[in-house]
């Protein structure tokens, strides 16, 4: 097991040895998301088939429900993605950018893109870097 996250936030997190341990890497099933609670922040974690782990906000901007961890992972071109389980919007797991709005507006005043969190895997544990209280 050699997986590490490949996105921009992770370099920072691992440099500071930061992040909160949320679960064992083995607890995550490939391509099947899981939610974690860091303080009051809900995080959606995804271990992909290539072994990388990604973390985004669990809040679905288009429904206002905390369900992103229960979406379907996939790819758009080379970009790993997650689709909302409610209205099927597609987001980049690398940047959080909403890649397909399915002709809907976000719920309330929520931004359409997801917040991406830094993830590192150390000693077999998945650490998520959630900056400050959210």
């Amino acid at each position: 097991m050699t997986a590490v996250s490949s996105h921009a936030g992770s370099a920072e997190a691992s440099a500071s040895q930061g992040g909160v341990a949320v679960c064992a890497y083995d607890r995550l099933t490939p391509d099947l998301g899981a939610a974690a609670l860091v303080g009051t922040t809900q995080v959606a974690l995804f271990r992909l088939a290539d072994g990388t782990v990604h973390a985004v906000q669990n809040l679905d901007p288009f429904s206002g429900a905390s369900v992103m961890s229960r979406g379907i992972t996939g790819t758009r071109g080379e970009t790993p993605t997650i689709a909302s389980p409610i209205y099927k919007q597609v987001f980049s797991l690398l940047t959080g950018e909403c890649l397909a709005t399915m002709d809907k507006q976000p719920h309330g005043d929520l931004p359409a893109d997801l917040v991406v969190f830094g993830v590192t895997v150390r000693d077999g544990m998945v650490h998520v870097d959630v900056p400050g209280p959210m």
Partner: protein
Amino acid sequence: MTETQQIVVVGGGMVAHRFTEAMRARDTEGRYAVTVLAEEPRAPYDRVALTSYFTGKDPEDLALGDPALWDDSLVTLRRDAKAVSVNREAREVTDVHGVVHPYDHLVMATGSYAWAPPVKGGDLPGVFVYRTIDDVAALRIYVERRRKELGRTVRGAVIGGGLLGLEAAGALQELGATSTVIQFSDRLMNLQVDEGGGQALSRLIEGMGVKVRCNTATDAIKPDKHGHVGSLKFADKGEQLVDVVVFATGVRPRDELGRDMGLAIGERGGIVVDDTCLTADPAISAIGEVACIQGACIGLIAPGNTMAEIAVDRLLGGESTFPGADTAAKLKLLGVDVASFGDAFATTPGSLELTYADPVAGVYKKLVVTDDARTLLGGILVGDASAYASLRPLVGAELGGDPAGWLLPEGAIERPNVDLPDEASVCSCNNVTAGTIRHAVTDQGCHEIGEVKACTKAGTSCGSCLPLVKKIVGTELEKSGIELSHALCEHFDMSRAQLFSAVQVSELRTFSQIVERFGSGRGCDICKPTIGSILASIYNEHVLAADRAALQDTNDRVMANMQKDGTYSVVPRVPGGEILPEHLILIGQIAQDYGLYTKITGGQRIDLFGARLEQLPSIWKRLVDAGMESGHAYGKSLRTVKSCVGSTWCRYGVQDSVGMAIALELRYRGLRSPHKIKLGVSGCARECAEARGKDVGVIATDKGWNIYVGGNGGFTPKHAQLLVEDVDDEAVFRLVDRYLMYYIRTADRLQRTAPWQEDHEGGLDAIRAVIMDDSLGICADLDAHMARHIDSYEDEWAAVLKDPERLRQFTSFVNAPDEPDPTLAYVEQRGQRRPANDAERSSGAVLIAPSRLEVRS
């Protein structure tokens, strides 16, 4: 300027046309003048398309090429001017009117005549052959006259099950007559297809309503009492009543003029020519069907056109020789594609045959390859000949990759990328190469298929190469930045039905294998659930087994229906809507204990709303322990079978509708399908169960049940249509089994039964033929598939409760498994709770926090 030489062409068919056209195109100096002596009273026409004469086309529509050819000052067309004698010494041809035509070079292009075997009664009125527009016109007039005289549908028979015979059978159908094909051989088109292909062809043709009778010799045609054709008598003593008979038993070269002239005649007829199409007399050539070239006469247009081109080339000083006949053929007979090319019967020593048969789709394909499976030798395609245009030019070349790519439905797996060399012939009728087509796109500005056709003549004769022409044009256009896509999603370039056969044939069982073989990337929320559903339909394995969970759509993934706030609703099965009081009490108790909102569904069961992910297992444990099971309300699968109370209580009921509904619901529970399926059973014609609004509606009659199919509510409501009347219980099960399984195999993604039935070729009648008359020969397979489903059914929820691994997915947070989602909030309404809206949240109105009740029991 040299003196213009005179060419006389004897015969006014397609090959004569090609000769004249090619000569005028290439003889830029005007060295030759061409006179065409045609026996028919019209210009050369497209004999291959003769059948289209019945679809309302005028003879003019069959005209070949640009009619301006006949106005050319160097071309003379004499219609109705059959040549009757040739004086080789004087180099003169005399026509039927006594007009003498001197020639410097003579081209014999007299073609063939339709041959009929000497059968007793073969001269009765009502016996026809199938060769010329006049034959076809006479047939039409006769059929129409007999229909009026007899006051009923005219019964037709075609003797001969080859290519022309099937054309003629189609023509009879177009004329509104019934048609039976009488074939001496053991299969249709025995010269082109093998046994497997012949079977597929028979099924497809019979599916079109044409009867097929193989292994049958006709002894005599017997007259009716007025002396018209009345019946056929067969060698096996059988007899069949017929009103019209068409002989399509082959053609023979019209070489009588050649014989009279003293030219050498082949063993089986035809004027003998060398590879340059010259006879022993250097002033005489023979081309087309009348020419015996390399020892045989060839009854196909493509080699005939090649001979015409060679004769022109030689006259103009060229060096071309006949390369051997390309006997490849692709036809559309009665709407069925049939193609045969190269060494179709695998006569090459050591050759291998790769076959693919899909009786559901009515497809049979065979490739013949060398013993190392690398080089293509030939093939047979029945039902789907889309690969023909690409494969035919590859005969003798390396296939380059997995040959299965050519056998599986188009798009199933990527076909080996064969970039045809520029010199490869794409259109053999008009001798157009791949390079010429590419050139038309890149340098001549042709951006549409029509422009390319006009520019290159590719695909303008038989049209069989058009798919390849389109592909080449598409590839060239793509290179210049214009793209077209018909993909299911970016990862799979095929429809659900194609994917279904691909998965079934390949026997692959994981998404990773399937996407690797048939697709690209790592999938998405479109293709993953589609494949999850296909795998569930084929194997009926648990939707959360192994890596399947990650494929399932929102609801299937946790076997509950996600609501707008991310909580779920729970629906236990209530077969037929019949429920025990203790189950009602249990459901009420659970709703109270977990604070769930309860509502009766449209499918006669009870929905419990507001259950959190982590509560689902404990709720289901209580239901399963009490003997209830999953209702699959979350699946693209059988939902419910709605029923009225029926004869057991109702004063009007004539059958036990509840019993039938329960039997059906237990039979099909858990059956995964392209979309949800709902059934209904009514106990009498009053139809209280609204069964005709369902995918399958079963309605009681005094004698049994009527089955209706293809009803849908929802966005586009449709009433179900009558499939069959007054059948017994066993027949209900058998027919509904087949209907559902056929739908599951062939429908598109998220296509419900009503649009599927509408889009199905031939509509409900064709579906009825498939499931009741076994027109595709697949009923046994459908029955076995459904039997496997029924035998292997297990309650999905009971299975999950026994599996700690799968239960781990039912946690709110990996680091706080029992902590409820803190963002959930509810308000009370009419004595139950519902999710709070934004205004209620921000105003801090009465909020009910998520219930903290037990998560594990």
